[in-house]
């Protein structure tokens, strides 16, 4: 197995040169182009955010009964994407999956940037965002505390904790490579900056020992977070009475969905990066195959949850639940989104049973796009379609997003891409030290 995760027999120096060089080779036109597009969308986001904060969320399409819509969909979608990085870095590390090595940094960066996007939405989504800190337990002079029976203060805490730990974990992993960058950087300025960032890491055995200990500890710490964050996010829905939300399977369902969508976006980003940076030797078909299998496995957990949801809706005998699942969603307003969700997450997912699809970068990439769409539409179905058809038919109402909704969504996409492109430029996005380590292990194994 180890054989397939690095192709050829590169030396350490070759690996260093290959994997660190993107940081100082001249910027390509393609990169600038990507940055320009990302910046444009980022600007759109700034405008949309400004308009929303100064005018009110009436600019969005939300209404009564659909009081939550795009902002919550996008929040859950982005935070779900943010699960893959930590899952790959922490859980797969603990499970000693070698194939994670080449892609973990990449996935962690994606996680962090996705959580940044996700974190913006709950703030913007507030009617009075300037009072967001009332959700935080702080010693207020009025002696008011958050209302801890609600999922939302826990949600805020969980997301913030997750962001902090992910950031630490990511940075810790980077320290070793920052040290390599410091040692090889062509200009003094870069040497100074990377020198500071590397926190004096000199590569001594002592340093490595501390580093590994801490990395292992953080991995242990991050592991439960992967499960807790989306469990708590799911309770934003599960604890409500709303038909379609009020369900005990939501925590595992949401966690599986999150990891599924996270792996989806990893593939979406990894395949082009692998191609542009010619990383076929360190991101091999073996990696793609493993990612495909992960998609298939987590996708099927999601699919299983769909089946259970429908079964429970039928079994409950509740007319509200039954209407929600068997009439409201498939035939109600915005039913097209439901069917798109089914197409992506139920039908197209099955393509991954074929090894050829899993190992073909193009096919796998196409499937991953559908995974992303499928998981976004799933959140749309849960958030919007549930609210469209609640208890009292007199208050049934449809929902349609406005241009501000779309601008914000596209804008956070742009912001994410912007951060990601900068990350690709200024940070070693393949963990050089770990790849070299793996390379040595492999060489030893071959000798042995």
């Amino acid at each position, binding site marked *: 197995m180890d054989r397939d995760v690095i192709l050829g027999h590169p030396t350490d120096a070759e690996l260093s040169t290959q994997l660190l060089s993107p940081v100082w080779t001249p910027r390509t036109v393609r990169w600038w182009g990507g940055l320009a597009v990302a910046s444009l969308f980022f600007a759109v986001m700034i405008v949309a955010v400004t308009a929303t904060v100064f005018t009110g969320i009436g600019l969005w399409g939300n209404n009564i009964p659909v009081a939550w819509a795009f902002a919550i969909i996008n929040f859950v979608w982005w935070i779900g994407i943010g699960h893959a990085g930590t899952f790959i870095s922490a859980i797969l590390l603990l499970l000693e999956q070698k194939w994670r090595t080449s892609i973990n940094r990449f996935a962690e960066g994606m996680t962090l940037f996705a959580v940044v996007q996700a974190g913006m939405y709950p703030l913007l989504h*507030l009617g009075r965002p300037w009072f967001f800190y009332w959700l935080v337990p702080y010693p207020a002079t009025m002696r008011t505390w958050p209302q801890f029976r609600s999922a939302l203060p826990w949600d805020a805490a969980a997301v913030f904790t997750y962001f902090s730990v992910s950031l630490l974990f990511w940075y810790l992993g980077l320290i070793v490579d920052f040290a390599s960058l410091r040692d090889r950087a062509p200009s003094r300025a870069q040497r100074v900056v990377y020198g500071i960032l590397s926190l004096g890491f000199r590569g001594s055995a002592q340093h490595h020992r501390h580093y590994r200990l801490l990395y292992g500890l953080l991995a242990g710490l991050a592991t439960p977070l992967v499960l807790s964050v989306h469990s708590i996010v799911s309770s934003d829905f599960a604890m409500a009475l709303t038909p379609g939300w009020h369900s005990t399977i939501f925590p595992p369902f949401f966690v599986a969905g999150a990891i599924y969508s996270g792996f989806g976006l990893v593939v979406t980003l990894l395949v082009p990066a692998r191609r542009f940076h010619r990383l076929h030797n360190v991101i091999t078909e073996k990696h793609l195959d493993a990612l495909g299998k992960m998609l298939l496995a987590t996708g099927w957990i999601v699919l299983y949850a769909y089946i259970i949801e429908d079964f429970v809706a039928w079994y409950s005998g509740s007319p509200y639940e039954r209407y929600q699942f068997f009439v409201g969603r498939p035939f109600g307003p915005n039913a097209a989104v439901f069917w798109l969700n089914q197409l992506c997450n139920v039908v197209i997912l099955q393509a991954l049973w074929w090894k050829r699809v899993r190992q073909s970068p193009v096919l796998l990439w196409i499937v991953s796009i559908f995974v992303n769409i499928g998981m976004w539409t799933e959140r749309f179905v849960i958030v919007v379609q549930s609210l469209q058809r609640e208890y009292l038919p007199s208050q049934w109402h449809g929902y349609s997003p406005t241009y501000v909704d779309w601008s914000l969504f596209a804008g956070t996409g742009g912001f994410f891409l912007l951060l990601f492109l900068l990350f690709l430029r200024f940070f070693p996005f393949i963990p050089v030290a770990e790849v070299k380590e793996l390379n040595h292990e492999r060489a030893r194994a071959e000798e042995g």
Partner: protein
Amino acid sequence: MADGKHRQLPVASARSGREYWKSLGELAGAPEASVPEFAEGADLPPSVSRRAWMKLLGASMALAGVAGCSRQRGEKILPYTRNPRDVTPGMPRYYATSLSLDGFATGVLVESHEGRPTKVEGNPEHPASLGATSALDQATVLGLYDPDRARTPRVPVGPATWQAFFVRFAQERADGGAGLRFLLEPTGSKLLGELVDRLRNRFPAARFTFHGAGSPGFAAQGGRLTFGVPVQPQHDLGRADVVLALDDDFLGGGPSSLRHARQWSARRRPGTPSASMSRLYVVETMLTPTGSMADHRLRRKPSAVVHVAARLAAEIAAGPGDLARRLPGPVAAGLARFRGGAPDPLIQALARDLARAGAASLVTVGYRQPPVVHALAHLIHAMLGNEQTAWTIAPTLVGAGDAEQDLGALAAELDRGAIDTLVIAGGNPVYSAPPDHELGRRLARVKDVLYLGEYEDETAAVAGWFHPAAHVLESWADATAHDGTTSIVQPLIEPMYGGRTTAEILALFTGRDYPDAHRLLLEHWEKQLAGDFASRWPAALQAGLFEGTASPRMRTEIAPAALVLALAAIPATEPVSAGLEAAFALDPSVHDGRFTNNPWLLEHPQPITHLTWDNAVHLSPTTAGRLGVADEDVVHLELGGRRVRAPVLLVPGHADDAVTLHLGWGRRGSESLARDVGFDANALRTARAPWFAPGLSIIKAAGERYPLARTQLHSSVEGRPIALSTTLAKYRQDPDFTAEHRGDLPTMLPPVPTAGNQWAMTIDMSICTGCSACVVACQAENNILVVGKPQVLTGREMHWIRIDSYFQGDPEEPRVVHQPMLCQHCERAPCEYVCPVNATVHSPDGLNEMVYNRCVGTRFCSNNCPYKVRRFNWFDWNARQPANQGQVELQRNPDVTVRQRGVMEKCTYCVQRIREVEIHARVEDRAIRPGEVVTACQQACPTGAIQFGSLHHAGTAMVRRREEPRSFQVLHELGTSPRTMYLARIDNPNPEIE
């Protein structure tokens, strides 16, 4: 728009150097020349400034009898002493006054905060109110503050003062009034009656026309047809066991609807399964509140109602008991003709039911049915001997005897150019009269048109002389209720824009300099009351009416001559329908167009359709299917060569082959809101067939759609146990049919505290007519803002109480249940545990409280509210919606927070009223008395369907009702334990009719 709003005619420039003349008139020394160059107050800012406002507030001090600054009224009015709540100095005061519509008064009490009228309540002592109000009454207070109200008197050459009107119009005329005409609104004012008489003396050749879109006078003509004299029918629904309404929405509108609704509801509440109920039959075209309450409803084109009435009268005459003997022979003979053709079992059953009820039956006829239908109702009453349920009084509307002429005659005179002076006092006839009178064009031929109007409306646009009219809350006047009770109109505030009343305009023509409405009124009543004035006048001011002035019953005899001819003119059987019939109706929200600039009423969901901000072409699903049109399709309507374009709205239960068109929309005056809403159905009307006309054609405008903003899009209960209903017979068999929808459910949560007053509400769906007065009352009480049509379309209306109307059964013959829905104040409220910041919490007295200041706006509470009664401030509606700005801010209730952007809000059970009563009780060191707290919706409700109070006040209607077997909680199975309980709708169908 801006230039239309502040229309000022150009005034010639000031003289300088050489003498310039401004007009040929001035050169000739005509009287216009004496007009001052600038109007009084022309140098003031265009709107009421803060300073001016403070001056106006001084009027309140005058009301309290304290001398003050120069603008205040000198005379004295007295507060209503028998207030619904204890009134102490420093608290809002209530004054009794009257609002008139189509000449009939409703007594109201107006709440005044430091001289600022803020809320209209019903006057419990007034026979036309009995303490209730309609949606239109409630919205009147907003009209006072309408920023679009006309402010400047003007003459043909520009702004002017009252003096100019006096100079021009007060002098004697050489022609004895031959060129002088008055076009007045129908009125019951005794003072105006006297002024009309005086004008007839002074100008014997002058003529008077009374025109009101909403009072065609068919009821009076029906009396003339039957009895030889005009009458005003009176009904007592409280004594009627069987009621038949012929095209009459007596619960939803009309001069006595509040009284009728109260009487009717008393007989429709089976307090126990064994109690009796009255039975209601309705024959109508479009579903109305009355039709939705019917036990049996016949949908008929308006033109077919006469056949139902005639056939019914014939069946009763031919029925057992030889009731026909009570009619004169020729009349009875004339009826026999209508029994021809196939027997109609429905009408036969109805006839038997009416005959069984005998004297305890009643037939009411709507305003738009021709006189002969009213006559048939009189005949049925005569046969059944219903003297207790139906009688007549002399018409209360002012007439002018020989000097009265109808609008058609006036229009013809105008066309001949015979008229030099036309005085129009209110009513906006250029808009509201049938267009074939062509008043707009014909008025141009009159030398001087003088219009007294509240707005620069369509009529003002063609009037050379215009004076702003005083709002009713600024006016001194008298009025007459539908039963003849003389009512007083007293002002709450000095006229904000120097408005004048109709009496003042008429007095001007009697030659009085500077007439003053108050002085005219005092003079009139001093004369009328003679020695009793000193004692009776203050009492009348306090009560808002002269007690015991209801008109006596008329003694009438059926006069066969004209009646036999009229009956003979009715075809023996209903003609086979040919084509579509246009049925015009007064609008439930804007009436005849006089309220079309009132944002509360524009956003008021209409009963049944829940349509806001528009009118529509209402038709039945079958007819729509035949025409190939669907909701929101734009169609071209054509009737006799007249055309309009309008959107379609399907209404379940509408009569086939007929189309209901509401008047009052599509206005073209300068009012900013009214200009952009709806289409003008009046453009299709003719004077000959003002209410219904055959031969309508509808052509779909290909591909054109027009969105209609409705607040309820889905009207089926989807089989869910939400709005429970049953029949009286089934209720008697199974009284506990709601048992599984009430009571305690097992819970792990701690018990709910029961100490102290525990507030609760009971709503009886058996008597909720869906009239929606509560919606506007709540809006007025709780500072609920208007959001505008686009926001209603998005689903963001802010009403705290709504009427959910659910249809059951066949869409063509639906059963309708109205369920007022507001915050249920759940004991275990699902909104409370999901709020992350403790912004919605439970009070010890059982209220689900909303803490605006703490709310950050996550909206989780709304998502978790199964009743969907929470409303969110998506924007700062104050800043964003012009309809909430300007003077209307002065209407706001100072006891209620105006919510800011980004916070949630909802029904509070009128917590400000609860706390006010609590404070009073504490000051007086006593417990709160049962029934002392009254919510705004409860107070307005004409039928008393909404009851509120403390659970500990046993014996109140609120508590007794929730102990009835048919009580239930909506979505009881969710375990929310709502404090609001509903009583299932009980119908009382005739077992003979299935």
